[in-house]
């Protein structure tokens, strides 16, 4: 943590500091906008690193380091994130605490290079498995720091891979971080099954279908147990809300500011903001959504419904409330956009 009370700092610098404070020993990476500054910044600090020949090698580099008991991470975006899902799937299968910082950019394909919320599905379900990973979505620089720390801690504590899901606006722009508002936490210790002479024989491929089934069911049990601790969300003015807004990341930051203005006009609107997209805070959401005062649920996101899909998938089917969507794939969502959208739906 920092001695100064606040800093004027970029998101990339925040990530580097958080990874270091979380005890990260090494970064494996390949340059891609908007996460280049994490790689070059980490290297320029003199910390251990390897710029690999591509993201496939970076991802398996993280796996190898973690197998050996090191805290390792990578950072990428879009097309690079797709390639990293290969190694991330191995981490999921072998319960490796693989930490990946994702700065979402516009997609599909090379798309645009700074911003979107289109890597939600890839982060949550990008492997050939059941999506047993943790995905954190910060809304501010303070949270970028604390959720990065948490991603390392949860990954090592529960042995599931973790994604810190952010975007290029957050990483590239300079803002104020208020250190005094961040609670310091203890780091999870590292471990390795493969200590010298341990004589461990560790498969990730199975001949008997029942064997894999058993393995996945154990994993599922562990994941569910972890989920009850890991899943988190913030509620803002939801108690009396007639309109329940759902948003994550920097869209949720705009939503909060829109709500302040709307409340001044007497519009009863509140925000449900998942800080983990996976696991999703299902119970808390169901409670907020089933609140009698809630007449309509609005989901706002910079994608064509990736957050909405999660909400619908997780929500108790008994909750019958009308929905409306503000969806701008790979476009920023401004305070005014949300303000007008809520007003339109408040008739």
């Amino acid at each position: 943590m920092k001695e100064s009370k606040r800093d004027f700092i970029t998101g990339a610098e925040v990530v580097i500091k958080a990874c270091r404070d979380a005890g990260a020993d090494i970064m494996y990476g390949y340059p891609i906008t908007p996460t280049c500054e994490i790689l070059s910044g980490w290297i320029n600090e003199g910390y251990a690193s390897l710029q690999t020949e591509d993201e496939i090698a970076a991802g398996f580099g993280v796996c190898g380091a973690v197998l050996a008991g090191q805290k390792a991470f990578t950072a990428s975006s879009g097309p690079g994130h797709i390639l990293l899902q290969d190694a991330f799937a191995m981490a999921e299968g072998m319960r490796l605490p693989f930490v990946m910082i994702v700065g979402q950019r516009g997609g599909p394909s090379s798309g645009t290079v700074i911003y979107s919320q289109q890597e939600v599905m890839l982060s949550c379900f990008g492997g050939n498995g059941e999506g047993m990973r943790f995905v954190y979505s910060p809304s501010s620089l303070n949270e970028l720091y604390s959720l990065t720390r948490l991603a390392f801690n949860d990954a090592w504590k529960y042995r599931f891979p973790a994604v810190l899901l952010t975007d290029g606006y957050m990483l590239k722009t300079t803002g104020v971080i208020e250190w005094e508002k961040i609670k310091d936490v203890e780091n999870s210790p590292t471990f390795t099954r493969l200590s010298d002479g341990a004589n461990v024989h560790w498969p990730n491929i199975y001949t008997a279908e029942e064997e894999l089934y058993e393995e996945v069911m154990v994993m599922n049990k562990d994941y569910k147990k972890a989920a009850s601790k890991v899943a988190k969300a913030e509620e803002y003015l939801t108690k009396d809300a007639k309109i329940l807004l759902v948003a994550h990341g920097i869209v949720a930051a705009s939503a909060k500011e829109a709500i302040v203005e709307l409340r001044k006009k007497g519009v009863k609107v509140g925000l449900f903001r998942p800080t983990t997209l996976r696991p999703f805070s299902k119970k808390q959401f169901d409670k907020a959504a089933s609140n009698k005062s809630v007449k309509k649920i609005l989901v706002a996101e910079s994608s064509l419904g990736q957050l909405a899909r999660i909400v619908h998938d997780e929500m108790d089917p008994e909750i019958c409330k009308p929905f409306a969507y503000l969806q701008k794939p790979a476009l920023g969502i401004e305070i005014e956009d949300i303000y007008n959208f809520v007003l339109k739906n408040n008739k």
Partner: protein
Amino acid sequence: MPEAKFCVGCGHPIALMALNKVLDEMGLTKKAVLGLDIGCSLLAWNYLPVNTFQTHHGRVTPTMLAFKRARPGSICLAYAGDGGSYAIGWQSLFHAARRDEPITVIVINNTIYAMTGGQTAPTTMHGEKTPTSPNGYPDEPFHGPEILKDIVKPGAYIARTAVNDMAQMRMFIKKAIETQQAGHFSLVEFLSLCPVNWHTNGPDTLKFLEENMKPVFKVGEIAG
């Protein structure tokens, strides 16, 4: 989509002009297909009067060899940076060369990853400083053409030229395309210019090419 432009003093447009001239002279403009890697190569998407498309970073070679197999009469040009060719795309390039796929690969060697801000590439030279090698690159640079020379089949063509030698560029591109027409693999590496990421002015940019790059990367015909 707005027109994308190369920076002033860039080597990419010089190499592309040479390519265009040769295609025109050979009467192949209509048969040519230009596949672009992602890197500053992508800026060429509307630059030449030939069918052009962008692919992914490192993936232009496998895309173009399949295009060629589907349409053998076309002239397939896979255009990429040194990172796209020798780092993320090396595996595909290596096997395309080994199988003698009849395409022409054009590699723009500017010793760095230009599009993403000048990070270290496989071609970064010993001691060269980049944002990811702040103390100077500790390794030796990668010589793609020299390695491929040992694995290509008879009939393949591999050469290295530089963007300040128009006559040589045109001669090598012509031979490479003739090689493709004869059914063999060809590759030409161009020593290029990137004043933006080298942080050089006009004269120093050419000096970097002549005095730093040329002694390390020998121009000339390497195979065929």
